[in-house]
């Protein structure tokens, strides 16, 4: 199994003249989950985006396996799947087509989805929406389609922005089950959340975006 370490050191982010967050530090390794918590507007999404390399940091660095992610030789995207609060779904495609499209962008697992799509659609109970346009789905179902990406990826690092929003009770439990599976298989999860579900996990870390303290 591949060992992966994420190290965030003194990350500071400015947007214009506004300080979004400063001096955020944490580290995370295989089998751990990090909950980023805090009130609205405290920079959770920005921190998550900077972990994926699409947000520039003013100060500090993010290293994955001791290589700075800004280094062009660091192909950390091979190991990372990011699901933002926008679901990355095209309104003009059906549920199935969207997942087929997203599957194309995930080189870690080529054709498992194509060969047996129903298995993946069943997990979040969206089989009956297979041929619906995504623009016709409700918010919760869109979220479920977006999260279905996690089912057919082999990537180790999951970076998720508010994965629980809009989900019903059953889907929440399914998702937590999925998280537990991933963690036991040595994966890493970074997620921002308003709902504390850390009691399901043995090794969970908190990042409270108001103060900068990490409690094991």
């Amino acid at each position, binding site marked *: 199994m591949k060992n992966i370490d994420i190290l965030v050191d003194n990350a500071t982010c400015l*947007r214009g003249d506004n300080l979004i967050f400063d001096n955020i530090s944490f580290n995370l390794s295989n089998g751990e989950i990090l909950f980023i918590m805090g009130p609205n507007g405290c920079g959770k999404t920005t921190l998550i*985006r900077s972990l*994926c*390399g*699409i*947000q*520039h940091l003013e100060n500090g660095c993010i290293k994955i396996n001791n290589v700075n992610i800004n280094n062009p030789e660091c*192909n950390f*995207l*091979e190991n*990372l*799947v*990011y699901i*933002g*609060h*926008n*679901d*990355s*779904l*095209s*309104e*003009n*495609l059906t549920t199935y*087509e969207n997942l*087929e*499209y*997203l599957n*194309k*962008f*995930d*080189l870690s697992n080529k054709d498992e989805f194509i060969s047996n799509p129903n298995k993946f659609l069943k997990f979040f109970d969206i089989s009956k929406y297979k041929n619906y*346009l995504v623009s016709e789905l409700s918010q919760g179902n869109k979220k479920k389609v977006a999260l279905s990406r996690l089912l057919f990826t082999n990537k180790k690092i999951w970076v998720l922005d508010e994965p629980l929003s809009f989900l019903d009770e059953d889907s929440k439990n399914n998702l937590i089950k999925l998280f537990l599976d991933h963690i036991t298989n040595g994966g890493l999860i970074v997620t921002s959340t308003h709902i504390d579900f850390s009691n399901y996990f043995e090794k969970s870390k908190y990042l409270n975006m108001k103060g900068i303290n990490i409690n094991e």
Partner: protein
Amino acid sequence: MNSIIFKKEIYTYFRNLNYIFLPLIFFFLVISIFPLVIGPNKSLIAKIIPGIIWITIIFTSLLSSSNFFKDDYNNGIIEMYLTSEKSIEFILFLKIIICWFFTIFPIIIFIPIVSIMFNISLHTLTTIFLTLLLGTPVLVSIGIFGSALTMGISKNNILGPIITVPFYIPVLIFSASAIESVSNGLPYDLQIYVLLSILLLILPTMPYLLKYTLRISINN
């Protein structure tokens, strides 16, 4: 093999037919209004109609390309592209070609109808046709570039066109010059070659340029 990638781009237009018809109808509305303003002077209209066609094409291409990335940006698809290890240059290239094919190419096909309306000679028509075929893909790619630059700004409706229109000028100058040469009975191959070289310079480099622009714009 990449069929779903094709499908996604094509369905954007097929499932939103107004993306195809809006430019077409806009073009014909504007073109048919001109004679009403200029008056029934046949020789004057025949002289200026190639220019009018070109100006209308420019506004039409602005219409279709200035908000090109808006949907993909709002839906988080651009974020998905940039956080995927797959290289996206080919997809961006496809996007340019398909945008041109569904918004500008239908207009080019209907240009002969315009030539009947305005009594354009066959020789001039062929030149207009040729300059449009070579010039409009450049206009569309530059317009798309402008939309990539201003994608992250929420009220970007005017900034994109202001940035991009100056870059349309070389294409415009050489097209106008080619059309003028042919109506004066002069050779026009030089201008066509220049247009062709601009096209061959812009089309292959634009996807790479777009990728870096998207990366900067998403940072906002």
